[in-house]
C-alpha cells in the first residue's frame, strides 16, 4: 500500500494551477446572489440608492463572492471534495457588466487536505483574494492506479 499522501499527491500537488473560471458579472447575478443569501442591503439591488451612497452602481455582496469561490473549488475537485475553510478578502467591487476571472493555485498539500490560494480579478482590480482548505477523501481507484508501474 502506498501512503495517503502519495495517493492524494496524484490529484493535488503544491504548485498545481487550477483552470481559470470566467464569471460574467450580470445585474441578474448580483441581485440573485444577494437575495439567495437573504441580503437585502439596497446597494446590492437598487442602483439609484447605491449611487446616493457614493457607489457608481449596485455591486456584488460578499456572500455571493464566498459562494462563487466555494463553487470554483468544488467544480474543480469534484463532488467528493469537502470544503473545510474559506477565508476571503474583498478589494475592487464587482459591478454589473464586468467579468471576474477566478484563478487558483494549490499552495500546500498535507495528506488528503490541500490549501488553495484563490484570486478573482475583474476589470478594475482584484475583487477577491483568499485561501480555501479542501479535503479529498481517499479514492480507492487512485490507490490502485498508484500501484501500477510508472
Amino acid at each position, binding site marked *: 500500500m502506498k501512503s495517503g499522501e502519495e495517493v492524494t499527491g496524484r490529484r493535488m500537488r503544491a504548485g498545481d494551477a487550477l483552470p481559470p473560471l470566467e464569471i460574467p458579472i450580470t445585474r441578474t447575478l448580483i441581485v440573485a446572489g444577494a437575495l*439567495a443569501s437573504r441580503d437585502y442591503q439596497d446597494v446590492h439591488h437598487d442602483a439609484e440608492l447605491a449611487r446616493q451612497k457614493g457607489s457608481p452602481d449596485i455591486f456584488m455582496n460578499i456572500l455571493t463572492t464566498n459562494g462563487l469561490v*466555494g463553487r470554483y473549488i468544488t467544480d474543480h475537485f469534484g463532488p467528493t471534495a469537502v470544503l473545510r475553510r474559506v477565508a476571503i478578502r474583498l478589494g475592487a467591487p464587482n459591478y454589473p457588466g464586468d467579468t471576474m476571472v477566478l484563478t487558483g493555485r494549490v499552495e500546500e498539500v498535507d495528506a488528503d487536505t490541500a490549501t488553495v490560494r484563490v484570486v478573482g480579478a475583474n476589470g478594475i482590480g482584484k475583487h477577491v483574494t483568499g485561501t480555501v482548505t479542501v479535503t479529498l477523501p481517499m479514492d480507492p481507484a487512485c490507490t490502485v492506479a498508484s500501484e501500477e508501474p510508472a
Partner: protein
Amino acid sequence: MSYEPVVSHEAEAGDEFATRLKGYEGQRAAVARVGKDPVNAPMIRHWCEAMGDTNPAYSGPDAIAPPTMLQAWTMSGLSGHTRGTHAYDELLGLLDEAGYTSVVATDCEQEYPRPLRPGDEITYDSVIESVSERKTTKLGTGYFVTTRMDIRVGPDLAGTHRFRILKYAPRHRADLPGRQDRSQKPSRPRPRPVVNRDNADFWEGVQRHRLLIQRCTGCGTLRHPWLPGCNACGGLGWDTVEASGEGTVYSYVVMHHPPFPAFTASDHAADAAGPYAVGLIELAEGVRMLGNVLGVPYDKVRIGLPVQLEFQDCDEELVLPFWRAHGTREMQEAGA
C-alpha cells in the same frame, strides 16, 4: 457645544471616541439566536441557481448545504431581528451618529467542522472581536469592526464565521461631526501631496507653518522643488533656510476645465467649482514654486503681483502654503 478651540476639541473628542469604541471589544453581538428557517432544500436550490453551482452533493436525499452558504442561515432578511444584544447595534449606531454611515464587508473567514443538512435547526452566538483604530481607505475614513460567530446544531459546532466590516464616512461627503463647526472649510478634500524621502522635510516644515528652501552645503545654491542633489555643483549635502514669505507672481495659468472643486474651495466662499489661477511664485530668495493665488479673482492675477505666504489648514490632516495678494487679508476677513 464647546467653547474650546475647535482643533483641540476635536483631538480630545477623537481620543474619547476611540476609547469608547474599544470598549465594545469582547462584548456579545448575538446570544443564542435561532436561524429564521431550518436548513432546507428550497433555499439551497435557490442559492445553487444563483451561484451556478451544479455540485450534486447539494441535492438529493443525502444533500448537504453548500458550506459557503453558512452565513445565509443567520441572515435576518427584510423583517429584521426580533431579539439580540444592544452592544452591536449600539456600536453601529455610535458610528452612524459620528458620520460613519456607510458600511462595506471586507473579510469573511469561515470554518466548517460539520456539514449542515436539510432539517438542521441552527442557533448562533456572536462576539465583537475587535474595533480597529481609525483608518483611511480608498472609500473613506472609518473603523473596521470584526465579529466572530459560532453556528451550532444542538450542541455541535457546525461552523465558525469571522466577519469584518468597514463602517466609513464616504470620501466625497464631509459629513463628520465637527465639520459642521467648520463650514467655511472646503468640503472636498484636496489631493494629497506625494511625500517621499527626498521631500519629507519640506512637508514636515509646512505642517509646522515653516516654508523651507533647500540649500546646497557645497556651493550654497538654493533649490526648489526638493531634490537629492544640487543642479549647480552636483553636491549631495544640503541644509535649509526658512523663506521670508515674500514673493511675486512670476507666471500663471488659469484652469477653466475640468472643474475641480478641491482647488477652488479656498478661493470661493460659495465653494463653486469655477476657474482658478495657478501661480508660479518667485520667492524673495530667488527660487520659484507653484501655488494658489488668494485674495484676487482668477482673472485679476498678473505677472509681477506681490504676494505673501499664507498657510491654510485644508482639512484635518493637510496644511498647504498659499500665496495671498498684498493688502487683501483684511478684505477677506471682513467678507467672511
